[in-house]
């Protein structure tokens, strides 16, 4: 196995999926908890338009922060996200090929697909699928999206989410995330540890609770204004901001159980409205991506 770095893994996955007919996107430039929240997933899985995309997404989960002390946990980790819509029948085999591309000889490892369904109450979304276990360790979430924003989906998208730090750590046989190499000789630890520490301290101890409650109200209000103005994509960004403020308040221990239910509902209501309004806006445009095949050269492998 060649030397594996965080960066070599990203490059391999990007090339692999690009060769299989995926458009390579860039991360959304906002704080999100998962690659699923990128509009390239949450919005594109809606409606009849086909879609194939791959991208890296930094994912912030304030409550998972451990001040950079825990060798397995991060407050911000990176996902490599793939969406294939409609889900092709051979999707699992293609996925296994991506592991081979990473240098894994699958005959010498244990690969299993164990049931793991996914549900996001804040997005009104759920799907069914597996966690993929490599030698007993979860390296990928594999989900057939069934609903998003409360809307039944058809066609169905397959979502493949690689946890890239974990995968690198495992392939490089390192005992701590902070020991892996990012690339070009730079270590993940030296590059990121300060950030993990400071943001843990910020989210758990420092964040201004009152300010965040006010931000939640303000962001929510702005999202609603955007809906009124018929601007669903800006509305969606404000919704994402609400979601991150909620996560921050949650990590700060500022939300009681009763409040929690209420805030989740507020965010979900926005997400549901985004989904509905996005679908309507695409329909008004005549679902432009339905014409993708004639506009672009065919995929090499798909």
């Amino acid at each position, binding site marked *: 196995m060649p030397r594996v770095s965080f960066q070599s893994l990203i490059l391999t996955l990007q090339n692999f999926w690009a060769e299989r007919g995926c458009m390579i996107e860039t991360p959304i430039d906002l704080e999100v908890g998962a690659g699923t929240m990128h509009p390239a997933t949450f919005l594109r899985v809606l409606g009849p338009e086909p879609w194939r995309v791959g991208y890296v997404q930094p994912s912030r989960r304030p409550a998972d922060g451990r001040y950079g002390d*825990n*060798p*397995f*946990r991060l407050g911000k980790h990176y996902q490599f996200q793939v969406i294939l819509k*409609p*889900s*092709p*029948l051979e999707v*699992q*085999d293609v996925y*296994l090929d991506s592991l081979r591309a990473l240098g894994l000889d*699958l*005959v*010498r*490892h*244990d*690969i*299993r*697909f*164990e*049931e793991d*369904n996914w549900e996001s109450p804040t997005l009104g979304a759920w*799907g*069914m699928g*597996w966690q993929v276990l*490599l*030698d*007993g*360790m*979860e390296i990928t979430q594999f989900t*057939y999206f*069934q609903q998003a924003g409360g809307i039944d*989906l*058809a*066609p*169905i998208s*397959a979502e493949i989410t690689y946890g890239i730090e974990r995968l690198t750590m*495992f392939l490089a*046989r390192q*005992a701590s995330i902070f020991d892996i190499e990012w690339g070009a000789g730079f270590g993940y630890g030296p590059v990121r540890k300060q950030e993990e520490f400071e943001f843990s301290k910020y989210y758990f101890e420092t964040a201004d609770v009152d300010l965040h409650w006010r931000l939640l109200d303000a962001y929510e209000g702005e999202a609603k204004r955007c809906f009124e103005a018929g601007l669903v994509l800006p509305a969606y960004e404000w919704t994402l901001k609400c979601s991150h403020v909620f996560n921050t308040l949650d990590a700060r221990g500022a939300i*009681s*159980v*009763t409040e929690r239910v209420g805030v989740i509902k507020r965010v979900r209501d926005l997400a549901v409205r985004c989904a509905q309004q996005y679908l309507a806006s695409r329909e008004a445009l005549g679902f432009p991506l339905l014409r993708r095949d004639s506009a672009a050269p065919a995929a090499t492998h798909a």
Partner: protein
Amino acid sequence: MPDYFFEIVAEEIPAWMHDAAIATLQESLQRLCADLGASGAHVLVNSTPRRIAFVLPSLPAREEDRDQEVKGPPKKIAYDASGNPTAALEGFLRKNEAKPADVIDSGDEYIRIRKRIAGRSTDERLGERIPQIVESLRWPKMMRWGNGEYSWIRPVHSVVSLLDEVPVPVEIFGIRSGTKTVGHRTLAPRPIEVRSYNDYVTKLELARVVVDALRRRHVMAERARVLALQVGGTPSLDATIWAQWQYLTEYPGVVRAEFRKEFLALPEEVLVTVMRVHQKQLPIRNESGQLTNSFLAVIDNEADPDGNAAYGNAFVTNARFADAEFFYETDRRKRLEDRLEQLSHLQFQEKLGNYLEKTKRIEKIVATICHELKVEERDVVTAAHLCKADLVTEMVKEFTDLQGKIGGIYAREEGCPEGVWQAIYDHYLPQNIDDELPRTWGGAVVSLADKIDTLVGFFSVGIRPTGSRDPFGLRRAAQGIVQVLLNRDKRQVRIGVDRLIVIAAHAYGGEAERIKPDLLEFIAERVRTLLETSKYNLAYDEIAAAMEAGWATSLTDLVDRIQALKDMRDQANFLSVLDSAKRIANITAGHEAGRVDPKLLEHDVEKRLARHSEELGKQIDELISERQYRHALETFAAMAPELEKFFDEVMVMVDNQAVRQNRMSLLRNIGDAVKRVADVTRIVVDRRDYRA
């Protein structure tokens, strides 16, 4: 007689769904065989994570031909005056390809013919029925894929359908059947041509797939035993894990790994839960039963030559334990007592307040029970006081299924007496019918208090299970109460369900008592269900008869009365008990019991019966107070001849109202005496059983 072989390859089906799905499938296939003329055939169904295969053996090649009567036009328009067929009859015959000679004498006003219907071939019928059966298989959760037009447990990839090597074309979710299956996903991912089930099993074995789930399990069990032995231990016997493992691999294997020894300092319950529930791994114990740092994990391969799976499993388990250790150390910086305040931020139910309030109610209930049963209350009330504190520990937030146990462990480490920590530890028990009861009397009381508080609370805000939906586990709570109260060893809690409800309602402020009738009926249903299960194995009618005489003051007493009925039922004189009771019930229906006026008694038989009934009443009362229910029923049975004589010689329904009323009261008093044991009229008997 040809065999039919079918295989469907799908994406990985969740392990826990296999057994139920196979049972359902087996049932539909058994019915199909009967329809095809092969009733009693043994249908073989097997499955792996990715495939379901079955064989319908020895099917007839075709359905038998049969005759069918077809109704035609009325006779009066079928023939003309000279007896020749009319156009109406000819048209009917033509349509059915029949001749005038085929008309049979039907005996009614219509023309009928007998028509020979050719039996259809089995492959044709299979082609029709198999897709229906497979596509309509219900799974606990269904999903769609691709364009979203089909719904099943997972996407379907290929189908093989053969009747004695000859393809029977079927189409399932748009996939046409063929003769090819596929080998193991990574070890032998190639198409394989198959001719029959035996051929299939052999070829798949070479392609690293063991089709038979039981064989996979045996292979893994043996491997597990050997691997554990190598480190001087034995794998935990754990049916849940084995049931999952057999459906997590196509090519069964087990690997042993070691976690870091220092984690053995963590509570054993935490280690075991992480391994079993979160990692689906089997702990290994040494000769003296202690946990070792070795464990077993399932792999989908016969061996792990490079040690990759051992490395990976150790890696994940160490990571999990590192988290657990962090939680454990954080938690122990704060005593349980000091966590109670935090419980006020944890909602129990929107309208029922938070867990601190629940805790206070549980304490009250426990204190009242102890007081009423005259038991020293200190430890039990302390346990109640602390029983929910672990809900705000990091450990329980992460490993919810350890609630109670974690509280117990922390209480033990804080130096609480055994009576306290064990009651906390056990108070969620029993969770299901086979579960253990709390190991102490105090634990049983805290368990009862917690559960009755939940039931009274939810019922009083109008939440109760509907159909199969019971999101708050109210049925389980009710059943837990019944299980605890049925127990008779040193942990027995001598209290009735009705009293429990009143005490719990009082803890809510008393107003909740209005839900008592509903809640009693809800718990009565659990009593009936539980007593009928194989664990207690009591008959439905005996339970109903005895419950009619009361159950809510003591469940053990109820069981005693059911037992008396059960014993008595096999005796010859039981029929006389039953007949007498039924006759009394019929004749006195709607009549209120009253005093018997001796002056109104006319016949000798009647006077004698009145005298005896008084004695009988006293005797039965005494026997009941001594819980001699069998004797009470026998005493009643002894009255039978006299009753019979009474019915023969004395007319009850006379015109004189006073006399009539008096006779009814006499009978009613006798009937009511036995009703204190059971309403025997509810017993269903087959009289043939009683013939000598």
